[in-house]
């Protein structure tokens, strides 16, 4: 029997069968590969957190070193109180970013590295083309920046994408996020270069103005969510 390939019925059945088969194949692949992908993401997170406290390592070693150096990790709400029963590594910052401030669940990591106590705060914000995120590590005084790590989904290579480069991130070391009166001022990313000796500002990236602005907003708004927690710890 010869089938008429051009008939309406055949076309309809062909399209339906194709879509169902492809959908099946893709969902199978997704379900099978998801655990591996999640494990990779988690290792990368651990690697980034370790990098922010100044410990560079390969991704595969990250889980072990993470266990060794990260002494405490917990989730807090906007008023700085701990929320029990949540795994800080499993918190999706993207979800938290879209929640109103009062409902945010913010992960905190406390490391002990080279005899120092270091707090690590994950941050998340908007760049020019898509999300940017990072980890801000603060010294024991919860004011001086120990180190930062930033990453991005798709900022322009050579311009906005430079936020992921060491030269940019190095500028943050030693800067302070509170002014002398204890008010949260965060770090300004200044176009045309930050004034020398300004403890609250770093140089922006030439050609990457919008990403720089997004980063500044992220450091103000998302990091600002931890301020109550920081003040509480500093008061004790």
């Amino acid at each position, binding site marked *: 029997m010869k089938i008429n390939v051009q008939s309406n019925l055949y076309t309809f059945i062909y399209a339906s069968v194709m879509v169902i088969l*492809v959908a099946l194949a893709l969902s199978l692949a997704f379900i099978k590969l998801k655990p591996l992908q999640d494990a990779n993401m988690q290792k990368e997170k651990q690697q980034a957190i370790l990098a922010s406290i100044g410990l560079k390592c390969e991704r595969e070693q990250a889980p072990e070193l993470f266990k060794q150096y990260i002494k405490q990790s917990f989730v807090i709400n906007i008023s700085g109180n701990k929320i029990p029963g949540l795994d800080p590594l499993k918190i999706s910052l993207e979800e938290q970013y879209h929640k109103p401030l009062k409902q945010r669940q913010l992960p905190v990591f406390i490391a002990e590295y080279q005899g120092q106590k270091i707090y690590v705060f994950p941050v998340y914000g908007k760049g020019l083309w898509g999300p940017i995120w990072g980890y801000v590590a603060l010294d024991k005084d919860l004011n001086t920046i120990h180190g930062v790590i930033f990453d991005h989904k798709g900022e322009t290579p*050579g311009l906005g994408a430079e936020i992921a480069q060491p030269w940019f991130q190095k500028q943050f070391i030693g800067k302070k996020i509170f002014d002398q009166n204890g008010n949260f001022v965060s770090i300004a990313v200044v176009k045309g270069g930050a004034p020398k000796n300004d403890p609250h500002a770093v140089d922006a990236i030439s050609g990457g103005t919008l990403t720089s602005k997004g980063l500044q907003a992220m450091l103000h708004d998302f990091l600002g969510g931890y301020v109550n927690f920081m003040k509480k710890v500093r008061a004790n």
Partner: protein
Amino acid sequence: MAKLSKILTEPLNLNNPVTVQILGICSALAITVKMKPAVVMALSVMFVLSFANVIISLLRNTIPTRIRIIVQLVIVAALVVLVDQFLKAYLFDISKQLSVFVGLIITNCIIMGRLEAFALGNKPLPSFLDGIGNAAGYGIILVIVSFFRELLGSGTIWGFRVIPMSAYAHGYENNGLMILPPMALILIGTIIWIQRGIFKELQGRS
């Protein structure tokens, strides 16, 4: 046999998808700032294009003409998503390098162009070779363009510094324009110009 090898080698030069057919320009502009992502992109396109060509070629007698573009798109998109998922699970670092570019493969006009022009009317083996050849032709252009853009724009090649830091101390500066897409267009234009200057037979065709 001679015909098969012609299918494989012609897209490298005389029928190059980028410089002669002027396809795939968009991604050639986007990802040629550095060499490494350009090469990975070329390899991913090679994988997707050769397999999509084979699948379409196998199905060519069953596809209803009226929905053939949709069928091609679904197959290309499915392959790209699969590649993306596999990279994320097994080659995480490469998948990070490619990030948004993987999605760009779907919209690469070379792929749709070859499916329409070749795979729909040819057997699987020639289609496979056509896919490899065209992706290689695309890859060559990417490598040439990204070589110049990375060298002049960042002073590095494959991530290694070739222009010494001392040159910068003496006033040398990277060409910022090289990092931006317009320069890729100018470079591709220059390549087309040189190619047509050498191979006169290309001149009458356009």
